């Protein structure tokens, strides 16, 4: 019975006329030449066990490569015995974010405060040095952890600056307004990689001759300023969508500029554009791997290093597929989550 239904269904939907049938046959052809070979390569014929390259005798993927280099891909050259510190900070981050969904609205602001002001300090102390634990130079941070660290810190620090810029752009004071506009359009008009090059090579020239700010910090600052321009535009959209009545009501209650913005305008505006902010964060997460081009050993850099190791020549495909899987999963889930958020908040308004 089921097969008969399938045949009827495909008759009407897939093969209704010659044009449709041609397209369907083409699609089926595409599926056949890509999916089964890939599944075979990645799972069926693949080698999962072993420690050496010589263990990979099959024609499939050599996941041994990924297993052996896994820690390097994830954490770079971070000393192995201290990896628990990175894991701990991410755990704290995830817990605090998940908490924000289960608590009442009025506690959410405290969690936001914690995330923006307290968490960075905790995380930094954990990563770098604390209470007699070994100091790990920022130079040694690497792998996927570095990507996530820079992306998260980028978003967190770009947020305050972005808010200021968005408000500044809508200000009536001409200098502030034009300064904000120029700042935003400048940072949005240049590619991220020029910012990274500037941070890596040019910025040391602009600091006093005797001082030295290490590269990770410079790049983090560069990313934060770059992202703030994009965040500013997103927030500006939210500010514009707010009915003028809100502004008038706040003013009529005698609120000053900052009180009005902080308590009335911004909370509503930001709530409206949470999907936009999530999208910007996802875009940032996809852009952060660019730091490999200025010599930072994040996950793509580690894969390039590993595949050049003479012992492991020819493993480029496994490495990139592994990285692709991680990024795809992260990006896909974040974007579908933000879509759900969008639906949730739009119904809430009604």
């Amino acid at each position: 019975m089921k097969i008969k239904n399938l045949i009827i269904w495909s008759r009407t939907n897939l093969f209704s006329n010659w044009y449709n049938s041609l397209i369907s046959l083409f699609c089926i052809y595409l599926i056949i030449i890509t999916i089964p070979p890939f599944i075979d390569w990645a799972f069926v014929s693949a080698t999962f066990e072993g420690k050496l390259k010589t263990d990979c005798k099959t024609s499939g993927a050599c996941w041994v490569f990924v297993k052996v280099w896994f820690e390097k891909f994830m954490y770079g050259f971070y000393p192995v015995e201290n990896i628990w510190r990175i894991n701990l900070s991410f755990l704290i981050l995830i817990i605090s974010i998940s908490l924000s969904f289960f608590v009442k609205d009025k506690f959410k602001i405290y969690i936001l405060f914690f995330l923006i002001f307290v968490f960075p300090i905790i995380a930094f102390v954990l990563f770098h040095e604390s209470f007699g634990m070994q100091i790990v130079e920022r130079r040694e941070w690497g792998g996927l952890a570095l990507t996530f660290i820079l992306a998260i810190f980028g978003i967190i620090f770009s947020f305050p600056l972005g808010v200021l810029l968005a408000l500044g752009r809508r200000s009536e004071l001409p200098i502030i307004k034009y300064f904000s506009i120029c700042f935003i359009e400048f940072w949005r008009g240049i590619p991220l990689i020029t910012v990274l090059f500037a941070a890596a090579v040019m910025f040391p020239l602009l600091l006093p001759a005797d001082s030295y700010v290490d590269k990770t910090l410079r790049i983090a600052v560069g990313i934060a300023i770059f992202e703030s321009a994009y965040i500013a535009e997103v927030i500006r959209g939210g500010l514009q969508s707010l009915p003028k009545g809100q502004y008038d009501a706040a003013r009529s209650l005698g609120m000053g500029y900052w009180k009005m913005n902080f308590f009335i305008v911004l909370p509503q505006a930001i709530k409206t554009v949470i999907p936009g902010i999530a999208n910007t964060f996802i875009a940032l997460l996809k852009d952060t791997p660019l730091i490999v081009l200025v010599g930072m050993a994040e996950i793509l850099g580690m894969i390039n290093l590993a595949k050049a190791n003479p012992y492991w020549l020819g493993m480029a495909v496994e490495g990139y597929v592994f990285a692709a899987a991680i990024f795809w999963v992260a990006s896909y889930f974040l974007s579908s989550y933000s879509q759900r958020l969008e639906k949730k908040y739009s119904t809430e308004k009604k």
Partner: protein
Amino acid sequence: MQKSNFKNLLIKNFQWQNFLPQFLLLFFFFLLIFYFTTNAQVNLQARNITSGFDFLGTNSGFDVQFSLIPYDGSYSFGRAYLVGLLNTLLVSFFGIIFASILGFIIGISRLSENLLLSKLSHFYVELFRNLPLILQIFFWYFVVLRNLPTTEKSLILLDFLIINVQGFYFPKFIFTNFQFIIYGIIFAILTIFLLKYYSNKMFYNSGKYLPVFKLSLIFLILFPLVFSVLGNVGLTFEQAKLIQNFGIFNYVGGVKLVPEFLALLFALSLYTSTFIAENVRAGILSISKGQKEAAKSLGFNNSLSLKLIVIPQALRVIIPPTTNQYLNLVKNSSLAAGIGYPDLTSVFAGTSLSQTGKAIEIIFIVMMTYLSISLFISLILNWYNKKIAFISK
């Protein structure tokens, strides 16, 4: 009494509240610039690097793999800048074309009634949109193009395209008397303008409708053809030839596209096409069903309703974000630095910078160039928006 009056007057007239923040902003901004400049001067002097833009005239000393204009190490840095800029524009131009074509096809496919097609294009969009662009570039370059056969074992498609690990080879089109084709195109364009004018007039007068689009296409193809026959335009193909030098094989001649260019082009086109596909889909979906039904009830057939009703309105929704994507594509072309394609960033902000050490001048030039390109595209977008707005009201 007098004193407080005066104070009120002062405050009212000078409006400290408005004046002070702006003054402070300017003050700290210039303080920052001053701080940076003095530090830069000290640092540059300590490293024996002079400032100024005259390095643009000195020999660069390095070669690049791919250039549209003649260039090698004996040319100047200014020339290297030009090489980089042309390469950026080249890959952006073709990237935009391919991304648009792919994007439109995929976008429309997503709305198809054929379930297989719409699911497949949905899968395509989700796959290529969520992967970082740099990863896609690496994949094309290191996995796909690096594993092509070596020169002596090249793949030859249809006697036209030669594919091997050193690149793609096309025959070079060599025209004689090419100017006649140009004349033909100009003539065709003039005729099309005349046609539009005449068909508009006819439409107002009699309501009859000329198939302007189809006729224009015919003119664009026909007239250059006629002119080329009349003007005795000759076309020869120069295909790449395999030359053997002892045991070394090389293809010489023809048009060669290096793997760096191809990897960047493929990755950029695929990645950007997913965003354009989503824009197209959103645009077409935004046309409420009522529009199509009204058109049908007025007797418009499918293609006319598409052309006059759906697409113009959809375009209004599609074009602004798509122009934004074009801008992103140009900015993303700077990722060429990752695989050594000699675009502006890689040649100028990369190699030239490390050769001369003049970081500030070079970064400044590069940023200004990208800003100008961004500004130019934004201006076009604004012009288009104004034009559309006028029509709608």
